[in-house]
């Protein structure tokens, strides 16, 4: 009954409409027809005539909360994204290319990071970006680091090779160009568990910004490139691949086969998220972590990112945070913060993004926490912009608490 006959998966929909109830966009923007209409219902109409494709589908965040809610296992988010890929007549413009090519922009920016950071932060520059390019002036681009994470880890190669157990780290663009500290924290934690961290041969951006900005051919090329690297690491070198970003990890595991038709069934189970990988090691009892004594107490509020919800793995991050003696944990209701990667950067989406996240921001402020923790970098940007709280990755909190 629940057969997943790929393209006809939409026929499993029994119109219960629970997906639309859980859709963060439909709740705040009446112009979006909602996942049921845009997904299974719309797919049926588009099969009749592709003229039924509606550009309003680009309002979908691809948060996949509809898929989590669906009791019939319909891949609603995939159906919507696939329809955009197939039918959208509006090609990517300059803005889409700017936002999508995180890899290229990052590698250009990091050598001149101080200058770039200063320039994009300037008010006149922001106004130009807003008016000419269409990137909302409220947004600040994440700061670029002076030097990449890859460069740093390459210098540590010798030390990392000494560990008996090895993994490959899919750091993603954000760690590489913007926040190498998270990567360093990850290496610290892994080393404390007796595991060495290696880079993949030549990791490229997972492709999620390319997919959501309509650069699908490039996304597929990068996906194929990355999958070959993952396969090399997992099968040839027997090294599982671990990532700290929920969205990168989710993309490597699920978006590749579902949206880019890249078969990864043989390696999918060996692509893991950092908190889950670490939790499982600790749970097995093979190794123990030693925490600082008398570290000052911190009140942490955990935010479940959308793709974390889809992976179903928030439990691991939460459990890990609970192990840290100095952390007093509050768990925020799982809801979308509104940014959805590059979505919230676009001028026309700004009001929707902020309306979606509004209740979350208010709950964060009311929670009395010192810091918010989440596994997603774009949620971090959104929450830091929209609240008074700093946002720290669970791995960084863990690293900080280690002896």
């Amino acid at each position, binding site marked *: *009954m629940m*057969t997943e*006959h790929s393209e*006809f998966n*939409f*026929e*499993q*929909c*029994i*119109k*219960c*409409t629970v997906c639309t109830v859980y859709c963060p966009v439909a709740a705040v923007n009446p112009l979006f*027809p909602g996942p*049921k*209409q845009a997904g299974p*219902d*719309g*797919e*049926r*109409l588009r*099969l*009749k*005539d592709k*003229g*039924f*494709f*509606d*550009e*309003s589908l680009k309002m979908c965040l691809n948060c996949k909360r509809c898929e989590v809610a669906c009791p*019939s296992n319909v891949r609603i988010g995939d159906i919507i994204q696939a329809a955009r890929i197939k039918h959208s007549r509006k090609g990517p413009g300059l803005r889409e290319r700017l936002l999508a090519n995180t890899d290229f922009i990052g590698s250009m920016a990091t050598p001149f990071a101080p200058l770039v950071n200063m320039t994009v932060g300037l008010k006149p520059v922001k106004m130009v970006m807003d008016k000419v390019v269409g990137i909302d002036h409220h947004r600040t681009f994440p700061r670029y680091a002076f030097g990449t994470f890859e460069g740093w880890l390459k210098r540590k190669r010798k030390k990392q090779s000494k560990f008996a157990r090895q993994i490959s780290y899919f750091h993603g663009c954000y760690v590489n160009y913007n926040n190498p500290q998270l990567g360093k924290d990850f290496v610290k934690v892994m080393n404390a568990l007796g595991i060495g961290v290696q880079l993949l041969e030549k990791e490229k951006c997972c492709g999620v910004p390319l997919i959501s900005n309509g650069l699908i051919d490039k996304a597929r090329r990068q996906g194929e490139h990355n999958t070959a690297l993952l396969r090399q690491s997992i099968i040839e070198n027997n090294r599982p691949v671990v990532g700290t970003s929920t969205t990168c990890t989710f993309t490597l595991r699920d978006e590749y086969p579902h949206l880019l038709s890249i078969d990864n069934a043989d390696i999918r189970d060996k692509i893991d998220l950092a908190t889950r990988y670490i939790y499982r090691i600790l749970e097995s009892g093979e190794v123990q972590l030693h925490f600082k004594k008398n570290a000052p107490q911190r009140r942490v509020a955990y935010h479940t990112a959308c793709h974390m919800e889809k992976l179903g793995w928030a439990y691991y991050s939460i459990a890990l945070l609970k192990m840290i003696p100095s952390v007093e944990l509050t768990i925020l209701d799982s809801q979308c913060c509104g940014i959805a990667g590059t979505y919230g950067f676009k001028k026309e989406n700004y009001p929707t993004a902020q309306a979606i996240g509004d209740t979350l921001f208010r709950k964060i402020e009311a929670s009395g926490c010192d810091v918010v923790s989440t596994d997603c970098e774009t949620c971090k940007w959104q929450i830091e912009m929209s609240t008074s709280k700093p946002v720290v990755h669970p791995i960084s909190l863990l690293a900080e608490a280690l002896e």
Partner: protein
Amino acid sequence: MTREVDVIIIGGGATGAGVARDCALRGIKSLLIERGDIATGATGRNHGLLHSGARYAVTDRESAEECIKENMILRRIASHCVEQTDGLFISLPEDGLEFQAKFIDSCRAAGIRADAIDPKEALLLEPSANPEMIGAVRVPDGAVDPFRLTTANLIDAKLNGAEVLTYHKVEDFIRNQNRIEGVVVRDMHTNELKELRAQIVVNAGGIWGHDLAAKAGVTVKMLPAKGSLLIFGHRVNNVVINRCRKPADADILVPGDTISLIGTTSSKVPFNEVDNMYVTADEVDLLLREGTKLAPSLAHTRILRAYAGVRPLVASDDDPSGRSVSRGIVLLDHATRDGLEGFITITGGKLMTYRLMAEWTTDLICKKLNIKKKCKTAELKLPGSRQKEERLSKRLHTIPTAQRESVINRHGDMVERVNMGDAAHRSLVCECEEVTVGEVKYALNELDVRNLVDLRRRTRVGMGTCQGELCACRAAGIMAEAGKYCSQRAKQDLADFLNERWKGMAPVAWGDTLRESQFTTWLYDGICGLKNEKKI
């Protein structure tokens, strides 16, 4: 109560509607009487195939020629009812290629374009077709929506002075010696009897014409032949797929609006069953087994429902045994045939030739009434088909894509009568088929809708995958608001509608179809407290 018109037409199928339009365009005052809703008989219960005639080319040259002529006319006059999909006749290994050459020759002889194409090209044209085919011929088949076609004919008939009475059943004929002078009808809602008089009464009752003729005192021997079909949940194919062999069971797969249809079976049924057609498990098996040979993906495509219609086959007058039947048009002037004046029977034929049947009938009526006017139905476009869809689409650009395209598909330029000016009228009643409040109100006000089932035939409410789950109660609410009925009747109508939907789902109630019907039951029975006493 007595009323007098020139012509009374009995039967609200495509033929009756066509006669009403033809009469109206020739200035003849007509009244159409239908015991239920329009297009409820064979008109609404077939493939909706716009035959190119190719299917009959080898076996019945005359029908083939009629088909291709009418095919070309309908493309022009009824463009909003027609989908110009083209068709393929595929030869499978088990069929061999022998038939193909003869088939192509016969098509061409009948004036039907028939091009043999490479199986690979055929697969590019229609990717769902069986890749094992060894040959393919492309013909100008298409799809036609019988409900829209009948509705459009009646709209035009009424605009030109015709009257339509649905839910009026002929109880008796008014006979004066050797002349039929009218009918006695029963209003099915009030039970009131009325006498209606006319110079000529036309029997266009389809299979029910057999009994009507008997009531009038003449014999028209008909043979009810049941044909069953399956509706799939979405459009599997965009080109009609046929088998290139002698016509047989389940060898046509037609895309129609949002769905695809496979059919048909063929079996004789007794007259006492024609009012309650059902589809048997054997028929479902046969349709699926043969259907997957046309398009293998049917094996794992959701089936929405099954239904059956009754073909009104007519026994030739010179063969009382009924063995020799004609699928051609049968026009009987009972004055010359039986000595009964004022009575005409038009039957046989098929949906494809409804217009020609109407033309012949109206020609005969004109002759009898001594009116010298030419038939114009082959030239004058039907309401809805008078403007290009692209232009309508541009004019309505402010309406969301899905609602806009759906309503234009269904009503063509009659969309101008649909109010979608504000958000309330643009909001959806039926989510699967994108039927808006405005469209439902238009149907209620202008298209002779008496209940939810009628509304479905005008708008596709309840024809989508949910089969009434979300739309039925909304539509019933609008009907009650519009004063069509009280809340008690609304509840009864809802139950009737859902039972009618269930009747079609029952023969294929497995998998997602069963899951969804169960969910519908929870909603209506469990939450709304609607009891389905009549549920089978």
